[in-house]
């Protein structure tokens, strides 16, 4: 019927517009930030420290962000994998496990400012870790933990039972099977999950603001117990409290660097994923 054909056509256009909108928004953001911030990107900007708050460069901020993300993954990665192993391989199907899972999922919904406040109260004051790289990294780790746990659990669960059977039939124990066959087979999914969590952590402002430092530090931390600068907090400070006419441009420049790091990680995650898929070629014979 002609009516149906016309409907099909219009729906197709509508769906196309919706998809394009998503892409356009991303492109618009990237374009806008790049145009406004590219002028700020000089070698000096990237390699020198801030001078009197709104002059100088953002080197400590860049390195600080990388340090924070490092500590964050150092915590959330292993804990996520082990928790994922437990939930997938050892946890019995009962109310205790259901509750455990509910709490982990709920953690994902906690507003980041609340996690930041928790980090301040628990890590900084109660545990006496002070405002530091360690406090900031751990708080970020708490924030992305639901994602690393979920990604690990799903990746491990997706490993076909036939691999486990084959391993057990050769005389391996359950733990040996998990360690040497299952986790290795689940590695692509786990790594992708970690990289995605990393992406979330990189731009996280509220948590870091309350636990890691003022963002304006002009030095690198000498240990994990010292405060550390970060790009998102620096951006926030400059944008809200900058006095010079240059302030906003500086903010855009920082945003551009942050975006650059974020995109690099995402592209890297894609490449890693593709490498794993390529290496295994055909999945099932």
């Amino acid at each position: 019927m002609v009516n149906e054909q016309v409907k099909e056509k219009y729906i197709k256009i509508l769906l196309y517009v919706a998809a394009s909108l998503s892409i356009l928004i991303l492109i618009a953001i990237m374009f806008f930030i790049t145009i406004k911030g590219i002028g700020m990107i000089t070698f000096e900007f990237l390699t020198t420290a801030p001078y009197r708050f709104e002059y100088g460069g953002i080197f400590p901020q860049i390195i600080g962000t990388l340090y924070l993300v490092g500590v964050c993954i150092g915590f959330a990665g292993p804990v996520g994998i082990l928790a994922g192993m437990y939930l997938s391989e050892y946890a019995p199907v009962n109310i205790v496990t259901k509750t455990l899972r509910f709490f982990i999922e709920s953690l994902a919904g906690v507003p980041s400012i609340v996690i930041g406040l928790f980090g301040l109260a628990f890590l900084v004051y109660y545990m006496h870790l002070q405002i530091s790289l360690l406090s900031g990294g751990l708080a970020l780790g708490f924030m992305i933990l639901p994602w690393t746990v979920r990604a690990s659990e799903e990746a491990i669960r997706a490993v076909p039972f036939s691999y486990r059977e084959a391993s057990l039939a050769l005389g391996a124990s359950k733990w040996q099977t998990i360690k040497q066959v299952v986790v290795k087979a689940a590695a692509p999914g786990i790594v992708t999950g970690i990289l995605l969590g990393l992406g979330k952590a990189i731009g996280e402002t509220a948590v870091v603001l309350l636990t890691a430092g003022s963002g304006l530090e002009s030095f690198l931390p000498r240990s994990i117990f010292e405060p550390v600068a970060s790009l998102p907090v620096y951006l926030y400070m400059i944008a809200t409290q900058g006095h010079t006419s240059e302030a906003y441009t500086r903010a855009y420049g920082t945003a551009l660097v942050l975006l650059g790091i974020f995109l690099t990680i995402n592209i890297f995650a894609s490449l890693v994923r593709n490498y794993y898929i390529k290496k295994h070629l055909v999945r099932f014979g």
Partner: protein
Amino acid sequence: MSNQIRVETRNLSLNFGLAKILKNLNISIKSNYVTAIMGPSGCGKSTFIRTLNRLNDLIPECRIEGEVLLDGINILDKKIDVVELRKKVGMVFQKPNPFPKSIYDNISYGPKLHGLANGKKLDEIVERSLKDAALWEEVKDRLDKSALSLSGGQQQRLCIARTLSIQPEVILLDEPCSALDPAATAKIESLMVSLKKNYTVIVVTHNMQQAARVSDFTAFLYLGELIEYGETKQVFNNPNNKLTEDFITGRFG
């Protein structure tokens, strides 16, 4: 013609919950022969051979009565070390399941697990296993490539090589050719026959012609019971039981 019994079941019964899967099986399997376990779908043949390497332990609702003797020792005893048992009784599954690792790592997995060898000795074991599984010539130049890049038939021979790598005494094959094309099937069948020189081969199949082609002895199972067991020639040409005859002539399947 050896007459030594390698595996013997005595009054073996198995239940999954309330369902009786195996009923009072008494089978004696001779060393260095190929014994086929055949029967229609659902007759319990896969469950039967999975009892021989205690893979049924993985199923919590499974309850077993009776005895299974490997070289005279009851392997169903709680005190038996399942790891040692599985070193002696290897299994090849219906659908080829090589690990998502390189060909070399697939074969070396078992020996490394049990600390049997490393370094050069490990290389030798890998080579020997692949040769015994008639796969060496095809893969010797690409041992570091992923096992999943092999064809279905090659993957199954890889799984056989993997089982051989820890030098078991008994090799269980659960419908090893059902996922393969005729050419690959033919290779696996001739491999099974050649393996009996050094191993005791027990193969489950629902394909009668395959049972007739490769085996020396055949056991016919129906609804969990042993209907007939004897030399393959006799079971196929001169069955003692009407049910066997009906199955062989295709009256049911």
